[in-house]
């Protein structure tokens, strides 16, 4: 009601709290995707074997699985490094996105000055920055966080600005007659009603964070999933490259799921929106 938002599909289905209800809901929600993945992996394995594709070109799933097994230690330690970068980089971009978005909302002058630059910054290929950042900030975690931040903050900024400015002016008028200051209106009306859109921005950012980490590691690092990819590729160790990419994909999905989970518990009222 305060801001326009697409309907959340779960809001339509009745909550079923029984165990079998949960199981069937899980199947309904994730079953099609799981089935598709299983079928795709099966087809992939079959095609590679039938066409006899060399594994340095395109390894079969079974070969990738074996690569995971034989490189378990390397993958695990690389994952640890990259997870740290993704989480901190994502948190930094959320903080930066919210701060910049709010600043743009509060001042028309700031918005006119900064918005075009922000949009322009998005058309610069981030790896270019990555190289410069590596030179300035060194080989530590700093440049990776900066690259992830550059990748992720933009959707959060845009959605924050949109969410804050989409508030029905009747709410603002009502609040003004109820002794509200500008700060009260921001804290009690604008910010909460922007949260659904802010979370949408965070989910987009979450899906970018893993790519950001890889780009960050490509230009200057000695560990992490992206770094291991750059090591495995020249050796034509394609099964390991595939295994590393798979881990990255899972990390991105997990972060996305985590954001959705936080959203569900932070703004449960958003699902009831269409009823109010």
């Amino acid at each position, binding site marked *: *009601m305060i801001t326009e938002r697409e309907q959340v599909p779960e809001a339509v289905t009745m909550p079923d709290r029984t165990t079998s209800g949960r199981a069937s809901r899980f199947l309904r929600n994730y079953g099609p995707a799981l089935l598709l993945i299983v079928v795709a992996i099966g087809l992939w394995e079959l095609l590679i074997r039938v066409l006899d594709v060399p594994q340095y070109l395109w390894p079969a799933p079974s070969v990738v699985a074996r690569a995971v097994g034989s490189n378990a230690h390397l993958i695990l330690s690389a994952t640890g490094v990259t997870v740290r970068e993704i989480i901190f980089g994502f948190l930094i971009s959320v903080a930066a996105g919210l701060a910049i978005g709010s600043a743009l909302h509060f001042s028309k002058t700031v918005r006119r000055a900064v918005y075009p630059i922000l949009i322009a910054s998005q058309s610069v290929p981030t790896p270019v920055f990555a190289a410069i950042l590596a030179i300035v900030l060194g080989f530590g975690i700093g440049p990776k966080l900066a690259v992830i931040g550059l990748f992720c903050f933009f959707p959060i900024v845009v959605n924050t600005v949109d969410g804050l400015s989409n508030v029905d002016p009747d709410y603002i008028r009502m609040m*003004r007659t109820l002794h509200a*200051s500008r700060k009260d209106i921001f804290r009690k009306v604008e910010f909460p009603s922007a949260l659904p859109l802010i979370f949408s921005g965070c989910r987009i950012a979450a899906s970018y964070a893993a790519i950001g980490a890889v780009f960050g590691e490509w230009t200057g690092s000695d560990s992490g999933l992206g770094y291991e990819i750059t090591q495995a590729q020249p050796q034509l160790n394609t099964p390991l490259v595939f295994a590393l990419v798979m881990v990255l994909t899972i990390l991105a999905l997990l972060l996305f799921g985590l954001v959705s989970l936080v959203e569900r518990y932070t703004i449960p009222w958003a699902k009831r*929106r269409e009823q109010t």
Partner: protein
Amino acid sequence: MTMQGNGADASIQVSGVRQVFGQTVALDGIDLDIREHSRVGIVGPSGCGKSTLLFQIGGLLEPTAGSIAVGGTHVAKDRLARCALMPQKDLLLPWRTALDNACIALENLGVRKAEARNRTRPLFDRFGLEEFADQMPWQLSGGMRQRVAFLRTLMAGKDILLLDEPFAALDSITRAQMQEWLLGALEQEPKTVLLVTHDVDEALLLTHHIVVFSARPGRIVRTLETSFPRDIPRREVVTSPEFAGLKEQALEALE
């Protein structure tokens, strides 16, 4: 009473008010003199600038020409400090319980949340809403939501209420209940009330004076005095010849 105004008189003087939006004249030549604790109904067709006049009186909008005094002051900020606005939409915040929605004015004044709740809850009890205080807005019916919105308006402690078609979104049975409830509430908390409505019956039942506006540009075409004693049941009031006579005059002025 717990909810007192700031002591200055709650009268409203509007003289020669005109409002122009771009090329459109929304209001023209509006003069009104509203005494403290009187209730005035404004009836008029859609787009006649009724809501605009409420925004102007409440200090949310400066008129293009003319002057408005609320309790003797012409300053917009001071007018805003005296008036509370209740619109047609209940505008309850979906992330706050009914009680916390009603607390918002006190919170804006810097009262701590727990203290604000302690001061607001008795009002829920008094107006028969105690069992709804801790529910979320989506759990409440349209009528209940409007009642909570009214309590929220009362908790601002203002002595002038600007009601902008507060019951227009409700079905007719709920609306009739809400009108009775509002009269009861105003007996407990005397206020200066400006009620904007499409509904002539509502204006006749709830107010002492009715001002009929013309279509755009809104001008006052008729004023009527109404006074139906509260101890007579509603059905007898609305079927009485006096009521029918006043209604006819109002409807005639609206044509």
